[in-house]
């Protein structure tokens, strides 16, 4: 098992999305991100692959603050029911300074053209503006395609931008 650092970026200015073009040559990809948006309240963080924004995804995301639990999903059951995967929530823009949604996303067999592309993620963040409420998130999803993944992108939904200081790192994972 080995990890190879492939890419890392840290925003120095707000951007509406962060996209990473990835090479082949590894079994899986591991994406580590620390992301914050510019929306006053929490925002959704969505992920797409290969720039595909058609109805080609499904996903489910569970989150809890320790007191209450909630589940969100792409839509009704089906292989292709959504135009992206919601991989977590970003903290409100007024929350503690330098506070980001941190997550690790595992992209299985991203370069294997014989399998549908599957993902799982786990993350957490401090969500409150004035007092701490920490939320953890975990979920999974898939892109209903066997095409090789060549790029991964992250976008806010309600807000316009991901703010400076947000980072995305991509690692290639090799089984042996």
């Amino acid at each position, binding site marked *: 098992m080995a990890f190879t650092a492939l890419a890392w*970026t840290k925003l120095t200015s707000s951007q509406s999305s962060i996209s990473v073009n990835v090479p082949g040559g590894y079994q899986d990809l591991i994406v580590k991100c620390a992301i914050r948006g510019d929306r006053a309240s929490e925002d959704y963080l969505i992920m797409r692959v290969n720039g595909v924004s058609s109805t080609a995804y499904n996903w489910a995301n569970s989150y809890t603050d320790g007191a209450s639990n909630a589940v969100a999903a792409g839509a009704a059951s089906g292989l292709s029911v959504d*135009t992206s995967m919601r991989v977590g929530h970003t903290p409100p823009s007024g929350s503690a300074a330098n506070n980001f949604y941190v997550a690790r996303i595992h992209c299985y067999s991203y370069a294997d053209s014989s399998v549908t592309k599957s993902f799982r993620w786990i993350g957490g963040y401090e969500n409150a503006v004035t007092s701490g409420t920490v939320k953890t998130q975990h979920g999974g999803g898939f892109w209903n395609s066997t095409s090789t993944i060549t790029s991964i992108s992250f*976008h806010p939904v309600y807000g316009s931008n991901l703010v400076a200081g947000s980072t995305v790192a991509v690692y290639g994972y090799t089984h042996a």
Partner: protein
Amino acid sequence: MPGRLTKITLDASTNVETIVELTDEEMAQIEQDRIKAIEEYEKEQADREAYAALKASAKAKLIAGTPLTAEEADTLII
């Protein structure tokens, strides 16, 4: 519709970062994503409230010793 936004792309093979303005199509996609998210949020809220109401009704009926509906019973079984 916000002003013209930019996006960053990082090429992992070359480590070159590129920042470009969004195309009209990408700007339209952002609007579509927002509209869809609002619909999803409203549905999630409604589902959550409906479930909470069902659970409260089940609890009240249990205390009163009256029969529960199948939907109410489902809220008590993990």
